[in-house]
């Protein structure tokens, strides 16, 4: 509804191909910035490894693998949060957000590009995290990898939107966890369920449902969050 309103006359290139081209250009820009500066990825990777080390000592000796798998999800969620605080940092630091809004692209394309760029960061960090988890703690199964992929999509879709809200507010980094954590409770329920519980299918289906619903709403409402 809302995104459709934004599409009229806003787009540089027409059609779905043009839209996806805009998204690719914008996401590519973020990835190129990260490739050159290497700000976010090393920080996220170090953070997730440090968190796991803390968990090793926080879990009493003799704790089950199930407890460790639950902890892995806390680590992943907080790492995603750390990455999301940097989502709009390049624009903010260079004062380029207005430039981005004035560029002839649909605003939802900006959101989609941010989601994709954040997904790439998060997926790269999770390769490190899951390897470390497999080495230090417990076996990583196919269900867990599927849960990680589905949970990432949901977290990044919601995260890219609430990060834009946080950027507009005075309290920025302070408010982002408050915005994201209640919204990510269903993701944690689904992801932990898929990792440790029997009946993986229903949890994965639930994660997919979450991704679909929240992506759709975030895609439709992003325009209002960034518009003056």
């Amino acid at each position, binding site marked *: *509804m809302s995104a459709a309103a934004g599409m009229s006359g806003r787009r540089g290139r027409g059609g779905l191909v043009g839209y996806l081209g805009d998204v690719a250009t914008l996401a590519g820009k973020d990835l190129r910035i990260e490739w050159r500066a290497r700000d976010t990825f090393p920080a996220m990777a170090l953070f997730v490894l440090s968190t796991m080390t803390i968990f090793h000592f926080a879990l009493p000796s003799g704790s089950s693998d199930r407890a460790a798998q639950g902890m892995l999800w806390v680590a992943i969620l907080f790492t995603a949060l750390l990455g999301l605080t940097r989502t709009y940092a390049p624009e903010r630091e260079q004062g380029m957000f207005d430039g981005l809004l004035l560029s002839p692209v649909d605003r939802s394309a900006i959101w989609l590009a941010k989601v994709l760029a954040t997904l790439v960061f998060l997926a790269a960090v999770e390769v490190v995290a899951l390897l470390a988890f497999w080495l230090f703690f417990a076996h990583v199964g196919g269900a867990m990898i599927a849960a990680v992929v589905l949970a990432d999509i949901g977290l990044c879709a919601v995260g890219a939107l609430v990060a834009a*809200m946080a950027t507009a507010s005075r309290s920025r980094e302070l408010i982002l966890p408050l915005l994201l954590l209640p*919204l990510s409770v269903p993701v944690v329920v*689904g992801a932990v369920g898929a990792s440790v519980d029997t009946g993986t299918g229903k949890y994965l289906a639930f994660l997919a449902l979450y991704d679909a619903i*929240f992506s759709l*709403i975030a895609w439709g409402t992003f325009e*209002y969050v960034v518009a003056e």
Partner: protein
Amino acid sequence: MKKLLAPLDNAVGLAVLATVLIAVGTAMTFFYAPVDVDGLNQKIFYFHVPIALTAYATFGWGAWKALVHLWKKKPGADLESYVAIHQGTIFGALTLITGSIWAKLRWGHWWLWGEKELVLFLIIFLFYCTYFMLRYSIEAGPRRANISAVYALFGVILIPISFLAIRLATNYIHPVAFTKQGPQMAGSQFATFMVCLAAMWTLAGALYRLELLGKRLDLKIRELRELVL
């Protein structure tokens, strides 16, 4: 001025009606509805559940006004959405308190993570508490109104999704009074419940009107002051 004061009639009328209904509801709870098999502690059901349903209703109303704001660009819808969510948060806090008391009486603990309805409500409550932090950390203006509205819309999506998430997990002990077969209670209990529900909704309506009136007056006074100075 007449237009400005118009909601006052409603607020007063609703407040009187709410007082009467609450008095009748309380009397029915203690003198009309029979003592349940669970004992006297079941009486809190007539307050706890209507309060919880009122909280959901006001959150829903807030989201509806948010949608009206984004969709129709109706002036004032943002304020109405904010007031509804404010009332919802108050009733939400009451739900958590009455739910905790009931849990203590019935199961011996103030808080049970196994009690899914209470956990769901905690998530929703935390989510809406952040609404106020978000709203007041953004400069007043169209941007704040838009962001608040989008956040309020996320709330009504989060409620069913969280509900589903919590139902997925097992260990369900919350009593289910309303099933597909209809309400699982005696006629007199159901009547008492409905009166209490009507009482809470009227109370919420009165408080909503009253707060809205105060906030609108505030805005008018600020505008006048700016004109004078």
